[in-house]
């Protein structure tokens, strides 16, 4: 066992770590499509007991990545280790055994339509050869955990999307897994149901200590439950870290533009077209101000306007809650003359506001 017990592990004994090293997946050329490289040298470290989100556009490689974790996808190169077991080195029988420690839920739920809610949850236990009495004793509490005790004898067709995903979650937890993989688990659900499923996932994570790895293209999912996030683009994880840091202060340009589109911080196209990179011959400067934590509640813009006698035009503004903390983003236009010296920059820095110069407009 390569992983030494860490304090996190002893606090949450049920969760397993997920480690990927140099994960690369190339789909060979077929008659219908050219060679596709879905993953390039991906390194991933998910700590025991955390909720880790991988966010990316469709086609970025998210699905390939999460499916490599339970061996549904065989990587071209690289290794995946889950709870100390190298998944990529297992034979078929070993893989079947290890998969019982890795639960998975899906975008389209994938419930067996000919089985009731109860029997769907029992399915992985039947696969594992567990006897009838043990199955009955295990399934009831799981249905209770996901709030579906009264639907035990219902068939999937009689359940709503949210209820189906709850059955999916109970089923994924039936074999007492150390890791739960969520493949776009809320993408087919409406916003309200999404929130309730995310709350359930968080409860499961905190209550049972199960490590959660999820992939999504929805920023709201990451903001609501992920402890840490990785941004995937063209098969590479271009940035990762604590959710709040990555979303509020992305380091790379790609992550910035990508997260910008997702957080709605992108400017309206009409305005964006007028922005010029050079100051020469322009009247105003556009700044994007980021308000994190406590600063999000301060009247900083009003103070700036009074102190410097500067007119501040607000072009776009938004307040968000990310990983339980508020984050505000305001795009403003200020006349160039006020920015001759560094006094406004100094004022904003002192107020704890991050400043990003976007460009200039006439």
């Amino acid at each position: 066992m390569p992983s030494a017990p860490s304090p996190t592990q002893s606090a949450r004994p049920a969760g397993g770590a997920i480690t990927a090293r140099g994960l690369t997946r190339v789909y060979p050329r077929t008659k219908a499509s050219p060679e596709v490289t879905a993953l390039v040298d991906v390194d991933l470290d998910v700590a025991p007991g955390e909720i880790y989100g991988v966010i990316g556009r469709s086609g970025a490689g998210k699905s390939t990545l999460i499916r490599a974790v339970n061996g549904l996808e065989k990587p071209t190169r690289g290794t995946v280790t889950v709870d100390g077991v190298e998944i990529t080195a297992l034979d078929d029988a070993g893989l079947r055994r290890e998969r019982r420690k890795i639960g998975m839920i899906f975008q389209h739920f994938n419930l067996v339509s000919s089985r009731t809610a109860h029997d769907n949850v029992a399915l992985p236990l039947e696969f594992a050869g567990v006897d009838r009495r043990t199955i009955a004793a295990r399934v009831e509490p799981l249905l209770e955990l996901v709030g579906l005790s009264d639907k035990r004898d219902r068939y999937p067709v009689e359940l709503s999307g949210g209820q189906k995903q709850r059955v999916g979650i109970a089923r994924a937890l039936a074999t007492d897994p150390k890791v739960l993989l969520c493949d776009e688990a809320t993408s087919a659900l409406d916003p309200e149901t999404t929130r309730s499923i995310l709350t359930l996932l968080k409860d499961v994570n905190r209550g049972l200590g199960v490590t959660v790895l999820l992939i999504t293209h929805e920023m709201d999912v990451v903001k609501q439950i992920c402890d840490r996030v990785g941004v995937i683009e063209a098969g590479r994880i271009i940035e990762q870290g604590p959710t709040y840091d990555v979303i509020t202060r992305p380091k790379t340009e790609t992550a910035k533009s990508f997260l910008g589109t997702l957080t709605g911080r992108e400017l309206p196209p009409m305005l964006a077209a007028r922005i010029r990179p050079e100051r020469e011959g322009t009247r105003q400067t556009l700044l994007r101000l980021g308000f994190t934590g406590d600063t999000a509640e301060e009247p900083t813009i009003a103070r700036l306007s009074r102190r410097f006698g500067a007119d501040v035009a607000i072009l776009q503004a938004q307040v968000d809650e990310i990983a339980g903390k508020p984050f505000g983003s305001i795009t403003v236009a200020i006349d160039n003359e006020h920015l001759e010296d560094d006094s406004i920059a100094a004022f904003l820095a002192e107020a704890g506001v991050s400043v990003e110069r976007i460009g200039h407009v006439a």
Partner: protein
Amino acid sequence: MSPELVRLIWAATLDSLYMVAVSGLIGTLVGLPLGVFLATSERGELFSAPLVNRVLGLVVNATRSTPFIILVVAIIPLTRAIVGTSIGTSAAIVPLTIASAPFIARIVEAAIREVDHGLVEASLAMGASPFQIVTKVLIPEALPGITLGLTLTAVSLLANSAMVGAVGGGGLGDLGIRYGYQRFMPEVMAIVVVVLIVLVQGVQSFGERVARRVNKRIRRD
């Protein structure tokens, strides 16, 4: 209608049902696994064996494209080897079975292919073996389609069984030809047709009822 005629028709009906039941049963025992294999053995599937898949597919197609009456005559040596004789109701079961098994196989294959591939994926993720996926997921999910297919098979077996009179197999078809046609007794022909219609109706509505019963994809409140 003379009691003698009633006795004849009753005996012929029993003969027909016997032939259909036995050949349908054996046909299913062969056709079901064959169909499952055809549906799951292409490259990258559960029991990936593309070459075997192709060969079995060819055999199935060849059997299905041989007209039944030719099949009956062509396999007389085989029938004799299995049953000991090539004449009679039991002997007729051999060609009926050989014709029904590939038919059932194709029907099962189509029904299994209709099952959402996501279920196979989910089952694999749960640690299921390919065999478990077949027995616990694929066949139960395909059951409505398989049931309707077996109904179809039973009806076509009934039709085929009328032809085995050619090798001295009994049954309703044989009765109709011998009495109705060769002895100029049109009323026997008419009764045979009526009995066949009733049987087909019965089989069809029974099959549909079972198929509805096992179909959990339709909501019934």
